[in-house]
């Protein structure tokens, strides 16, 4: 990573909530998002730490979801191939000493997240859910600061990403430990802004990590900001990284994104528990597959994802009774990329969100 990229990385990582502003509005949000995938075992996990509001009048909200092939967790049972999903969310009252800006540190019961330049460490722990993660990372991929002030709901949203960290550490699920080594893929992004959950907002997002037969790796990141029912959207785009470098962008009408939904409505895995019981009677269709096609005058992309695990996060506004639903989806992904005449088939895993 060169000097310019390190400066940019610091800008991406900087905490944006203006803590020093005495009139800090309560609709401020600032979050740190990590996705880890292992192509060998098929284990995937998500960690999100979000600050909402302000010290003493806000929360630090943490989500931690692990998806893993059932055989990994219950090898003694000869169950058909399926994916087990474990998850926990917890919300902590934001005390002033929980957040440090320089170097960045978010800490509270069950969470310790530190980022100092290119180095980061994430520790999440929920004893009752028997889930813990302890991972160190070093940023490798070229950072992108996509926007700092895109209009969103009643306010704005900004985001940046670092789609490649070299990681090592350990994951523990129900008493079973899994080593995290340099073969794992780690994606990190940052979002910040002022808007209210439950407004007329939504988005479609995924990160897919795939490798081809020559051993090359590609990371694809989609972003499309929408309204709640996804009838209107901002400019959608896909960033395609080859290794740690940005290689190609498709945007706007070069992209076609098709979600396929389950025919019958069912009760999805819902987090957090208190919200799940609030919406306990609400059955919904969940995303089943996703296909993305893209083509410009030179290059093409065909991507298909089949989701083997879905869950729904319910995020309430902190000022009035309104909610946004974040459908988290994950599954295997097949990609065919045509870049400058070379056709590259590749496979891997993806994590995505359909937010409404």
């Amino acid at each position: 990573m060169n000097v310019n990229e390190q400066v940019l990385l610091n800008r991406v990582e900087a905490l944006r909530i203006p803590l020093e502003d005495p009139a800090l509005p309560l609709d401020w949000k600032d979050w740190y998002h990590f996705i880890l995938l292992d192509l060998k075992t098929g284990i995937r996990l998500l960690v999100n730490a979000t600050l909402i509001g302000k010290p003493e009048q806000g929360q630090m909200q943490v989500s931690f979801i692990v998806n893993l092939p059932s055989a990994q967790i219950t090898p003694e049972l000869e169950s058909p191939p399926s994916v087990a999903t474990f998850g926990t969310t917890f919300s902590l009252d934001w005390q002033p000493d929980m957040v440090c800006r320089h170097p960045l540190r978010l800490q509270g019961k069950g969470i310790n997240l530190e980022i100092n330049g290119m180095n980061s460490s994430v520790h999440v722990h929920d004893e009752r859910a028997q889930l813990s993660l302890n991972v160190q990372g070093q940023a490798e991929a070229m950072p992108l600061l996509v926007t700092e002030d895109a209009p969103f709901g009643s306010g704005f949203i900004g985001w940046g990403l670092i789609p490649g960290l070299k990681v090592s550490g350990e994951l523990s699920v129900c008493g079973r430990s899994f080593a995290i080594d340099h073969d794992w893929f780690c994606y990190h992004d940052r979002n910040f802004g002022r808007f209210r959950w439950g407004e007329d907002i939504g988005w479609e997002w995924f990160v897919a990590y795939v490798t081809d037969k020559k051993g090359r790796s590609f990371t694809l990141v989609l972003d499309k900001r929408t309204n709640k029912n996804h009838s209107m959207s901002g400019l959608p785009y896909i960033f395609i990284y080859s290794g740690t470098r940005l290689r190609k962008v498709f945007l706007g009408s070069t992209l076609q994104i098709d979600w396929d939904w389950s025919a019958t409505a069912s009760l999805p895995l819902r987090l957090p528990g208190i919200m799940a019981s609030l919406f306990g009677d609400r059955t919904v269709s969940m995303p089943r597959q996703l296909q993305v096609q893209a083509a410009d005058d030179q290059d093409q992309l065909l991507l298909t994802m089949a989701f083997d695990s879905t869950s729904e996060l319910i995020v309430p506004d902190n000022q009035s009774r309104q909610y946004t639903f974040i459908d988290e989806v994950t599954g295997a992904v097949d990609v065919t990329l045509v870049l400058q005449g070379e056709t590259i088939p590749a496979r891997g895993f993806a994590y995505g969100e359909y937010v409404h």
Partner: protein
Amino acid sequence: MSQRLEKTLVLPQVRLKIHSGTDLVVQLLIRNQLHETVLLRPTLDDWLLNDSEILPIVSRLEPPYVYLFPEYESTCQLTIPIPDYLPSGTSMKTWLRFPGWLEDAIPIQLELLEPTENSDRTPVIHPLMVTFPPPRDSKENYLGTAEPSTSGIFGLMSGLMDLDKIPARWLIAELLTRLCQHGTNYAQTPQGNELLSQLSRTQFFKNGVYAFSSAQVPAWIASSLSMANTILAAQIGQRHLLSIWEEWLFDLAQTDIELGDGGVHSELNKGGFCSNVTINSDKKVPKPAPTNPIPYQRSEASILNTQNPEQWFAGLLLGLAQVSPRMANCFRAIATQESTIPVVDHTVATQASYSLTTGLPGLDALPGRWLVVELLILLAQQGDTYSRTESGSQLLNRLSRTRFFKNGVLAFASAQAPRWLVISQSAAAAYHSSLGVQMGQGGLLHVGEQWLWTLVANALNIKGIDNPVSVSNAATKTFVCELGMDAQRWFVGILLGLIQVSPKMARYVKAIADQAPPPFTPTPTSPVMFNDVLNEGGSLGR
């Protein structure tokens, strides 16, 4: 292009030790030793803490603008609160900039001391004198002083920043010359010749020529161009401003800007584009030759060598008729109506020449970016309107599936061109309104077109004149607000606007559009209907 400056500027530096929690007050004394009036609005970059962390800066500027005539000086005051939560020993850096006038910045470097025990927190006052132009050091190389973070932002931004340094008159002069050249060529064609011979018999035409000669417009254009050439030649070689922009656009079709040099390093995060990278591909649209590859002296000899106001005015009218069908219709209407009412109206001509004489020196005061902003916004508005027509939307539909289009949007987004446009527009509007009467209701172009129509005798009722293409401040503001920071819409607007005024550009863009892949077959929209949670009858009062 800016890299070619050879000598570095000698700028003051600020280094202070200061207690956290106090206010730093920079008292600026600004001297104008340029031969033109300057309008300044200093800005500060975000804080850089210990050379790594970025912290948003808060500052107040009093008064918000400084307007300085040559050889005058003035003061303004920048108040910067220093956060009290930072530990002592923290190093804080920011850069004081004068957008539009100075590409280099004045570093302000602070070292924090323990918070003061004194509860009244007396502000620290630091006087700072800045002279325009800043003195130059004859030894150092310009690039030696560039901050790594800012040196990466060449590309489109450097094009925009160069425009800042160029007073509007040079650009106006160049645009007018282009227009006249265009019109002079048109006059050679049968249609052009016919229109000219009709127009030249009208009072409108006589008024214009009279105004042009009494305001010495040809001399003004000639002197502006020679000044611009002398100064620009040193900085950007013999290329003209418009050709730089044109080339930039043409280069977008040949490459993927995110690929960068050899596919290894991307320029995207530097906020720019690689104008010289081309990738072997069968699908290449031949790049047209630059509009004006030969130096001014020869190519524009025909028009520049003449001080004949009639030739200038005729060229200007026909040029306008060529680029704007609406103007063409107005001129035809004037030509046919006027020939039947041979009225001599000296008052109109005198008034017109008066407003032109007072208007031209005013152009000197405005940096080129403001004029460019107006031109771009005007283009964007025309393009935006065109994109809603059937042929416009068809072209856009194909164009949007090409790399050219994607590159343009990315370049606009990463160079933060929309932000530049929005900020410049609001600065220009604030300035216009502070000038009140002189600049009047709208921007420079508006003034220009209003002036043209004052040449028409009041008795005439020409359709279209009441609804000028130029934009009033209110309309511009609405339009700028509507587009906001949307890089795609800005790029679309400006591109489609350009192809309307430039047939060469239109041909080129159409050739690119023809390479677009077929569209995807639209799939039916998602069958999933999301319930309106708030209106659901359910438990727990949700």
